[in-house]
């Protein structure tokens, strides 16, 4: 036998001392504060409000500032965005007939909100998307055909201006790849 008595007793001692130490560590947790977040009902504030600004939740579209440029549809790698934008022959305006996002397909990658020129399509902090049917996961943003937004130098419409301001701020902080540092892109 190798080691003999020494190894025998040092084995016992090692087991005892390391178990003792481990037990001390776990015992110290009896008086530590648990880190559990009791989602959803026992929270001081909603989870959605605690999420960081860049959180990529369920997509939303502000139709008021959507230009119908189809950049998001092209950027989407899984084609979950379907836009039908046509120029109305009579009014010469770009009309949005359909703007659907299939939330069931969406993988929340954020690639669609990056090319958006106005910040119309953006992520919300909402994430509770469970529903009973696939059909209800289809978000249809165009209820009836509306005219697409035409960018102006200075927005003067009091209804659209705050939305656009929000969109541009979103672009600035979230979607603009250069971030706040400001680059040439």
């Amino acid at each position: 036998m190798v080691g003999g008595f020494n190894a025998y007793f040092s084995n016992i001692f090692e087991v005892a001392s390391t178990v003792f130490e481990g037990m001390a560590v776990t015992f110290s947790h009896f008086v530590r504060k648990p880190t559990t977040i009791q989602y959803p009902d026992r929270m001081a504030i909603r989870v959605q409000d605690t999420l960081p600004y860049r959180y990529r939740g369920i997509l939303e579209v502000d139709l008021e500032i959507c230009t119908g440029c189809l950049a998001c549809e092209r950027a989407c790698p899984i084609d979950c965005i379907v836009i039908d934008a046509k120029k109305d022959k009579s009014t010469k305006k770009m009309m949005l007939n359909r703007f659907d996002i299939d939330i069931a397909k969406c993988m929340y990658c954020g690639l669609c909100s990056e090319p958006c020129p106005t910040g119309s399509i953006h992520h919300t902090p909402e994430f509770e998307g469970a529903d009973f049917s696939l059909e209800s996961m289809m978000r249809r943003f165009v209820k009836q055909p509306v005219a697409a937004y035409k960018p102006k130098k200075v927005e003067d419409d009091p209804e659209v201006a705050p939305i656009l301001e929000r969109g541009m701020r979103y672009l600035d902080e979230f979607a603009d790849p250069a971030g706040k540092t400001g680059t040439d892109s």
Partner: protein
Amino acid sequence: MLQQFLDSLIADGTLGGMPRDVAYLIGMLGAGALVVFGFVLNISGVTTFVERRVWARIQSRIGPNRVGPQGILQWLADGIKLLMKEEAIPFAADSALFKLAPFVVTVGFITAFVAVPFSSALVIADLNLGILYITSMTSLVVVGIMIAGWASNNKWSLIGGIRAAAQIVSYEIPAALSIFTVILITGTLSMQGIIQQQGWGPWDWFIFHSPFTFVGFFITFVSLLAEGNRTPFDLPEAESELVAGFVTEYSGARYLFFFLVEWGNLYVISAILVTLFLGGWQVPMIPGLAESPFWLNLTQAVTFIVKSYAGVITMMWIRATLPRVRVDQLMSTCWKYLLPIAFVNFMGTALWVLIWPEGFRFAELALTLLGFSMVVYFFYRVVFHLRRSGAELTFSPLS
């Protein structure tokens, strides 16, 4: 007590002309049912809840806190859910034995309660070979486990059953040997008799009786852990290896029985340890307490249950701390470490009793001091870990 009560009932004719033995039988069955439903099932159930909360705190979680105040009724909800679940019996399983196994396990566990003393008067039957009776009855559990493992017709279950058998049969030897060290001192196998020879103070407990019983306490503890299939010896149902071991194919109420036994066994193990080494129900004889049997027994019962439950929580805490051992390590622990040391203990205690039949006061006090300083050092380490982590503290057990 029960006999007197029934005799009085027969005497005043409440039971009509019922034969005496039939009355006894009904009385015993009634009392048994009362104990099983009033205490055994509840203690198993509450233990599952306490275990989950204890683990949760150790793991920085909260644990179940929704059903009832602070989640205290969680075990009831779980039990009802399991009772109402469909029970699936695998097509290829041996359905008769498959159904039998949970009952064998449960019988082995519940009959052990007969000899567990709660106070100087509160014991179902003070058998004069109580400790031997308990160990022999709990050995029925392993038969049930083996039947379950074989009857499921599942290889994981089979391995679980084999592991359980190998483990429990092996560990019965060091457990019995270190239990015998105490019996050498007391000269009686009766649970009450063993407790009566101890005192309320730690220096009068058998754990501090001699260095050998001090070591023997730990050997008994480890062996009983292994017999109860508890971490670090939970190999028969090692969930990361054997899916769920011998309970893999069980569902519904039968599954419930296995877990009833598993958690109830914790209490039995603790009760054995408390009886043998930790002074049992002994309380200080405050003047006035001795005169009133009711209050005396109540304090004794509370003392016993608190001590046993401290043991139960320690076992939960161990389970939350340690990893599982491997089969070969399990065996080498038993045969290479526990058994030789238990033998040395046995011989040593025999000598000790020969030299100091009345106990050696100095050694008792010194060992008590040693135990106390170990506890103090332990808390020093706990505080050290707390300080190093810089964690936010809360002393409320409820949050």
